[in-house]
């Protein structure tokens, strides 16, 4: 599913690992900075000096822009801060990737989105207000939840969680862990990768393999 071969950058020296499809992985880095750099390399944002990166057995850094877009439409990434688009309202943020890639109408995604927000512990009475807001002033955990729901609506084969539970209350952390684990089991063959530098924060994630960098 993900394969890194001899990746050398300013921050990594001949880094290699392989993540197999259908499993749950924890990738534990040494710092938040290293987290970001690793994700940049995997997600096609920073070309390594040496080495190759494969996603779904396709080499990321030789693909054209169009092929990359097709490839990443199969990946759901939940960034640490949600990775939301500041000039789009919350609802527009949530439906954007699914609307863009599948052509599904936003109103058809409403029911599923509400269900996911319920699972994340967001009050239904607050949801309507939340959907019409711009993401900038929202609290950290809400941005994270919005990013998570957005990725889930895409029904991706590969989910990558960047520090998903860091900085959250234990209750919220448990809720998100359960949500992501349930989501993993919803579709056979789905791969879930938890990238974090704080292993404790994902202690409740039942991973098949833990990779320590």
């Amino acid at each position, binding site marked *: 599913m993900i394969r890194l071969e001899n990746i050398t950058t300013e921050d990594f020296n001949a880094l290699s690992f392989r993540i197999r499809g259908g499993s749950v992985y924890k990738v534990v880095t040494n710092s938040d900075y290293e987290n970001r750099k690793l994700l940049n390399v995997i*997600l*096609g*944002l920073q070309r390594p000096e040496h080495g190759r990166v494969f996603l779904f057995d396709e080499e990321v850094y030789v693909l054209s*822009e*169009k092929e*990359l*877009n*097709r*490839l*990443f*439409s*199969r*990946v759901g*990434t939940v*960034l640490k801060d949600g*990775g*939301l*688009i*500041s*000039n789009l309202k919350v609802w527009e943020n949530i439906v*954007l*990737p699914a*609307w*863009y*890639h599948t*052509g599904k109408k936003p109103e058809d995604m409403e029911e599923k989105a509400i269900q996911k927000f319920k699972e994340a512990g967001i009050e239904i009475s607050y949801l309507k207000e939340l959907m019409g807001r711009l993401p900038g002033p929202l609290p950290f955990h809400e941005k994270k939840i919005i990013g998570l729901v957005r990725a889930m609506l*895409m029904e991706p084969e590969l989910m990558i969680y960047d520090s998903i539970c860091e900085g959250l209350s234990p209750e919220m952390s448990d809720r998100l862990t359960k949500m992501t684990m349930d989501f993993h089991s919803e579709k056979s063959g789905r791969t879930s990768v938890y990238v974090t530098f704080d292993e404790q924060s994902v202690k409740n994630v039942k991973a098949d393999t833990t990779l320590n960098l």
Partner: protein
Amino acid sequence: MTTTAQKIGRNIINAFKYLEGYYELLCYSIRNISLLRRAPIRSVFYKQIYFTGIEALSKVAAIGILIGIVIITQIVNLVGSNAVLTGKILIWTVVRELGPLFAAIIIIARSGTAISSELGSMKVNRETDSLRIMGINPFDYLIVPRVAGITVSVFILAFYFQVMAIAGGLAFTSIFMELPFLQHLKGIFSALRIFEVVVSLLKSLVFGLLISIVSCYQGFSVKSSITEIPQAATRAVMQSLFLVFIFDGIITLISFA
């Protein structure tokens, strides 16, 4: 002496780099204009028309009417109540020149800075990276609909400016100078040729493309520092103005010289 020469040389090289970048962005936008068929991109296009075009209508109308009053007052002082001559001068000034030029200047001041700052801050906040990892090309989603939206807005606003300037000017003279409104309107229509309207619309189309390309390019040129955003906005305004005046001169020379 060497330093001055070096500075001039560097500026010329930079200018060519910018022009090359603008040309590439223009070609990319034209090549991918069919992306507007996709609903999420079309929604950005509509929003851009709303923010750049519709929200500017009242300001363009107010400036158009004021300019129309100033020009027609000067014309009447110069030629008296000669309706045909008044119409001709009004067309020479408003339709041929001021309509597209003022609409472009208003859009540069209002939207050029906004777009370059918005795109610049999206780059700094790594929102363009967020789009990439969702499999959305930021050029397709952010640039193409903005270029199309701004161009359409400038095109329509220029025409609107001309109508407001002429109507406002004529209304003012008919109320305060007791000159017959309909007679002057007839004078304008008799002096108006389709060629002048076409050149005026062509100018606004070119200005719209220039403003949108320069603003988007400068916004996207921001890398990672927040201090680059105001610099990009300033460059967007100055270079848009400069290019608009250059192309205005070129089109006027080719069409009317």
